[in-house]
């Protein structure tokens, strides 16, 4: 992956964003809710990113917003990975009617427009950040399930799985010790891409007012706040928009980089 410039760029940006998010309380010049100027002011030396309509410092809100957006991304992806890997592994390993049942469930979930499903669930629950993470996780595992199932169908044919059975390994042991580690590459790729997707979904939800609730800032609800002021204070929309775009792009670059490293063509060329 060292050779891939885009992936390296992605890694550096994500490393930077994560560090900034973690260090937010230390480096943020203002408290995220502090009213530090009168109304929206353009970026200046006092407020590097400007301030929003209420006079809150946008740099500080972006930093704290990064904490929320990145956390939502990670937790949602972990949930979807756990569910998707489990479903895909069981379907791919056992095959037959178990496979049929799980994969048809996946098809049905895929066919359902997930943003409406999420909105419907969110409107029934109190829309807070924990629900956002869980709901995004619960509605984004299907791709991972398909991927892992495919990998398991392939690995299942390999002789070392038969060899593991021949020394008396149980199904669970074969799935988790022998097969899953051999499927980890594509799962890691799916995780990076999934995280990008989760961050986008969180932004969309917060933008629609069904995600992270004010006064907590996330990149999505910063975008929402900007709606009415597009003309007068464009920086209010541009800054969170750019942050979301750069993050998602970086994650795609990283995912693509890992995928390239794992592909047999690239691997042969490398070694």
């Amino acid at each position: 992956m060292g050779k891939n410039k885009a992936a390296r760029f992605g890694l550096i940006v994500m490393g930077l964003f994560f560090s900034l998010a973690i260090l937010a309380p230390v480096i943020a010049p203002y408290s995220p809710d502090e009213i530090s100027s009168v109304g929206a002011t353009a970026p200046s030396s006092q407020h590097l990113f400007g301030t929003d309509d209420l006079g809150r410092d946008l740099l500080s809100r972006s930093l704290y917003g990064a904490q929320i957006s990145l956390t939502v991304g990670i937790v949602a992806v972990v949930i979807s990975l756990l569910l998707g890997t489990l479903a895909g592994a069981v379907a791919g390993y056992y095959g037959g009617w178990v496979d049929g049942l799980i994969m048809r469930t996946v098809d049905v979930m895929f066919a359902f427009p997930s943003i409406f499903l999420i909105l419907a669930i969110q409107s029934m629950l109190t829309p807070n950040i924990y629900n956002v993470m869980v709901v995004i996780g619960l509605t984004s595992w299907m791709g991972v399930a398909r991927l892992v199932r495919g990998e398991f169908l392939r690995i299942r044919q390999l002789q070392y799985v038969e060899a593991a059975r021949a020394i008396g390994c149980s199904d669970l042991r074969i799935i988790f010790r022998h097969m899953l580690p051999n499927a980890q590459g594509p799962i890691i790729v799916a995780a990076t891409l999934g995280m990008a997707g989760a961050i986008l979904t969180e932004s969309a939800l917060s933008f629609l007012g069904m995600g992270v609730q004010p006064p907590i800032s996330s990149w999505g609800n910063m975008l929402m706040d900007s709606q009415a002021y597009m003309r007068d204070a464009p920086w209010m929309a541009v800054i969170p928009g750019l942050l979301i775009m750069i993050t998602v792009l970086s994650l795609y670059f990283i995912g693509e980089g890992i995928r390239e490293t794992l592909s047999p063509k690239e691997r042969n060329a490398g070694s």
Partner: protein
Amino acid sequence: MLEVKNLSVNYYVDEGTVKAVAGVSFDLKEGEILGVLGESGSGKSTLGYALLRLVDQPGKIVGGEILLNGRDLLLLPEDELRRLRGAKIAMVFQDPFAALNPVLTIGEQIMESIILHQRATRREARGKAVEALRAVKIDPARIDDYPHQFSGGMRQRVVIAMALACRPEILIADEPTTALDVTIQAEILALLREIKAQFNLSIIYITHNFGIIKELCDRVVVMHKGKIVEAGETRTIFDHPRDAYTKKLVDCLRELR
């Protein structure tokens, strides 16, 4: 010690039912090497897998008995069978490049069956893995190496060490030399003969190569289209094949010389 009676395995595919093993009976005596000879598709490999009840979908064992010291393996519940696999009956596979898990060290793979079957601690298991490696003449210092660091012949030794780790009574070898060079083949065959004596093993050796059978096996069963067409002492069958199919095989080998 192992007696197979009327064993039948069917494959249920879209085109219909394939009788891969059709009413096969034979026995394996203690300390002998029994050859199972047959061409591709004769059901010989399926037979080997069936002995450990490892036949996969769409295949199914549909009848017969597999008596290990008088106990019918086909009647055992799955978890009891798991305790036998690797402990009493072990298997060596055809392709040493595919039979080892690329993400685990060879030590971990050899130790696995010891830990599974003997309630051994990791330290004890490691000691036994070292012993197994010595038995197959691999430098025990390489215990923490990964499969890709070994050549084909060496990997097949590792596979054999895995099979030997728990000191099984019976070893099923499914064409263990087919994927290897002829010189390496000879080494592996010599090794099998050696460990047979050392560990008091009985071996079922599955192959399509009459030359190997002639060299290695005490007795042989010849399979053709899922059935045993001839069985007996290797010498006798080689000198006086009675079945037409066996005759052809023997003629092939003679022509080659």
